[in-house]
């Protein structure tokens, strides 16, 4: 049951719109209830072949020999694809925006780094014949020690998962093995806190489990182009990634999608398109590559597990004065999107609260498991779990009602956030108040009267003195430039640059606006 609380923040809105705000039927609903919505796998092409992928049985092993001779003679087999057949058999998804180094092959060549890593792709007349041929491929593995725990992976002498990142961590700004957040002096504040609470939290990996598994169908089209029907959540991401791996201009491909059977983040990684298109290129026939459910569940990238340590200092009156965070994101064997999850997480600290001293160290760690990726709440879900469990414990510790404790510490308009931007447009306090009302949870009058629009800013708008901050600030390195063009990508192994002279001091945040910003229905223009 959903209730619109139009009474709250009413002075910031015009509610005289014609189409916006109406519960109009979904454009796609008739298609859904008649079964005529067209998903990628609903395209039936003449002479279509089927691709299956042989996956590693070991979490970490050297590949001594791959013998496909018998499989090639197997009935119905049209083509066996190996790593050497992939034009650019090393990629990282975010290379499209110049973030990170190419670290993942489409088909493993000399080593496998997780159980389920693709080694050989087989194109055959039917799925069954592809399966039968798969059983005839002989792979000679030399098992290597594997590492599965994020903190073990950082210990000296841990097995190197991915040679591109020999310390088992993603490298930020070309030099750092983690992303930092420094705001105020957390250590000093902790020393002066009435209570200090340090806790460990562990998020599980999660499978996206969309009812439609990942897949694509690629077919030769006229004039040397290929049409690709795909389950992707990011059409151009997948198109450009495929163009890079297959080393052809992006306009070689006509990608069609847009109607997808659930994604939740699990269909961003372009898991099937490059090999599927390569199959079509090598056979001249339409090729279909769809993950089975077991493949989707075990080898389709999951939400990565995160291990989080929180250390908070709280005063007897309920004010949190310091939060120190150490977190390890389990990226699995390759980077995919976990490197960015870390950045998003750091920006999220310390949660929706105004805490004057925040210290964060967040690591993207490589282990010998299925590479992780984005999932609904990416970079934030696990941290929210940790922070909100911690908030409950802190409230308990100081003997406060957990709702009032949150209202007391909630961020408000005009406060300075730990990533050094002014908080605006806040509404946490109002959400807590309404949730209390709905659940008949009693709040004291003073907490019912508090507001996101009152009592913020002022002393809370300051960036506190932060130890070590007098050093020159390096400007952001090349990997952070905006350039949706891989030709601009920095070459691998570029030597680290000297830090340039300090830039002018950062722009000060704009002064808190006074009075409500009013939002007009006419084309979204604002007026005071």
């Amino acid at each position, binding site marked *: 049951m959903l209730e619109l609380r139009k009474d709250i923040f009413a002075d910031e809105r015009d509610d005289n719109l014609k189409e916006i705000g109406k519960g109009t039927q979904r454009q796609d609903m008739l298609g859904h209830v008649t079964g005529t919505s067209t998903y990628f796998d609903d395209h039936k092409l003449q002479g279509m072949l089927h691709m299956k992928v042989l996956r590693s049985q070991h979490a970490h092993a050297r590949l001594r020999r791959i013998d496909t001779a018998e499989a090639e003679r197997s009935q119905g087999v049209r083509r066996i694809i190996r790593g050497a057949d992939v034009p650019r058999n090393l990629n990282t998804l975010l290379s499209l925006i110049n973030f990170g180094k190419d670290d993942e092959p489409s088909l493993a060549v000399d080593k496998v780094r997780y159980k389920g890593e693709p080694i050989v792709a087989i194109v055959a007349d039917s799925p069954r014949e592809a399966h039968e041929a798969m059983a005839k491929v002989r792979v000679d593995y030399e098992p290597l020690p594997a590492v599965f725990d994020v903190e073990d992976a950082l210990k000296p002498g841990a097995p190197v998962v991915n040679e591109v990142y020999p310390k088992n961590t993603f490298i930020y700004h070309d030099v750092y093995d983690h992303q930092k957040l420094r705001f105020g002096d957390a250590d000093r504040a902790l020393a002066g806190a009435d209570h200090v609470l340090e806790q460990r939290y562990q998020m599980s990996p999660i499978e996206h489990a969309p009812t439609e598994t990942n897949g694509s169908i690629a077919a030769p089209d006229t004039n040397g182009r290929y049409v690709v029907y795909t389950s992707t959540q990011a059409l151009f991401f997948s198109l450009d990634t495929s163009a890079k791996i297959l080393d052809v201009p992006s306009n070689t491909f006509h990608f069609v999608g847009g109607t997808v059977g659930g994604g939740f983040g699990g269909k961003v990684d372009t898991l099937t398109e490059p090999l599927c298109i390569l199959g079509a290129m090598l056979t001249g026939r339409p090729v279909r590559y769809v993950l089975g459910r077991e493949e989707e569940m075990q080898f389709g990238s999951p939400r990565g597990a995160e291990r989080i340590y929180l250390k908070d200092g709280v005063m007897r009156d309920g004010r949190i004065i310091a939060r120190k965070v150490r977190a390890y994101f389990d990226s699995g064997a390759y980077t995919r999107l976990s490197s960015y999850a870390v950045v*998003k997480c750091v920006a999220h600290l310390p949660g929706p609260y105004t805490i004057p001293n925040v210290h964060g160290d967040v690591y993207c760690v490589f282990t010998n498991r299925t590479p992780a990726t984005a999932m609904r*709440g990416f970079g934030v879900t696990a941290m929210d779990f940790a922070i909100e469990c911690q908030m409950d414990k802190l409230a308990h510790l100081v003997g406060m009602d957990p709702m009032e404790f949150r209202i007391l510490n909630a961020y408000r308009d005009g406060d300075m956030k730990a990533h050094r931007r002014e908080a605006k447009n806040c509404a946490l306090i109002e959400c807590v108040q309404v949730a209390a009302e709905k659940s008949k949870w009693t709040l004291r009058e003073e907490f019912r009267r508090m507001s996101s629009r009152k009592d913020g800013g002022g002393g809370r708008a300051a960036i506190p003195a932060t130890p070590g901050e007098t050093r020159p600030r390096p400007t952001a390195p090349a990997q952070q430039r905006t350039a949706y063009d891989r030709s601009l990508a920095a070459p691998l192994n570029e030597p680290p640059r000297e830090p340039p002279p300090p830039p002018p001091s950062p722009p000060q945040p704009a002064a808190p606006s006074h009075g409500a910003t009013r939002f007009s229905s006419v084309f979204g223009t604002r007026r005071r």
Partner: protein
Amino acid sequence: MTRHRGRGIASVNYPIGMNLGGDPSQALVHSNPSGKFTVALSSIDLGQGMKSVTRQICAETLGVPVEDVYVDTADSDTGPHCMGSFASRGTHRVGNAVMAAAREARGVMMEAAAEELEVNAADLETDGRGNIHVKGAPHRSISTKDVAIAAQFKQGKTISGRGIFLVPLSDVNPETGEMSPATCYAHACLVAEVEVDDETGEVAMIRMDSAYELGRALNPRLVEQQLVGGAWMGVSHALYETPEPYYPDPKHGPRDFVEYLMPGPGDICPHDIAVLERPAPDGPFGAKGPGEMCANPVLPAIANAVFNAVGVRIDDLPITPEKVLRAIKAQGGARPQARR
């Protein structure tokens, strides 16, 4: 055996869009000669309602009925670039791009109408039902269909528009983490009530009450879909799901829906939701994005409710009966906390 009830809360915020390489999306809008509009996107509808919400945004901006707009996703030959459907960016980023495109198309449509009615375009308004008329003089009116015909066959105008919305990249300071990670934030608070069986360790959901602040509910039914379904996923994450039950030991991974657990239709509970709207200054009609954050408060709210019910803290997800039972045993029995 005793079943203990407990309540727990959590409150969260969530960034809309991402900060990585810049965050652009484009849209194209054009009319056919009958005054019916097509929105061309490369954005994806994976169930969240991209096609539907951008359709309403386009119709509102053009000033035409929603039936006169159709959204086409996603074709790389016709749909202009979009980063993709993730990071709660669809409604906000793509919505803004569609708004910009529709605004440009509306400009041409109004010019064409002005020429037909022999008035100044600034004196015209749309009625939202497919007509354009002189302000204060509804009888001096022309249908959008007639405008489209005139534009195409008489005036030689294309009623079309291009839109892009770009949030430029914000550098991340390596030493301090200073950055502009997002332009606006959605908010939520959720109260979960659970019942914990101290003999089996099982946790049953009793009810949820929540408040979500989303800028503006562009379509309350779509918002309800996201919030109800998202909270279900939160329950699922909290109590059931894991592809590695003994993480970090990778063994015993589930291979199918018999082994990978999720709450079925018999495991759900009533969920009473309030939606608050504090418009984001840069959102389309103030909208943020409900898609991701709806699941987030549920996980800790349930963990906190379990503590309230039996006095044990489960800090490793998922909160399985095995973990609850071991924790209850370790503390020598259930210790219900003060009822809330």
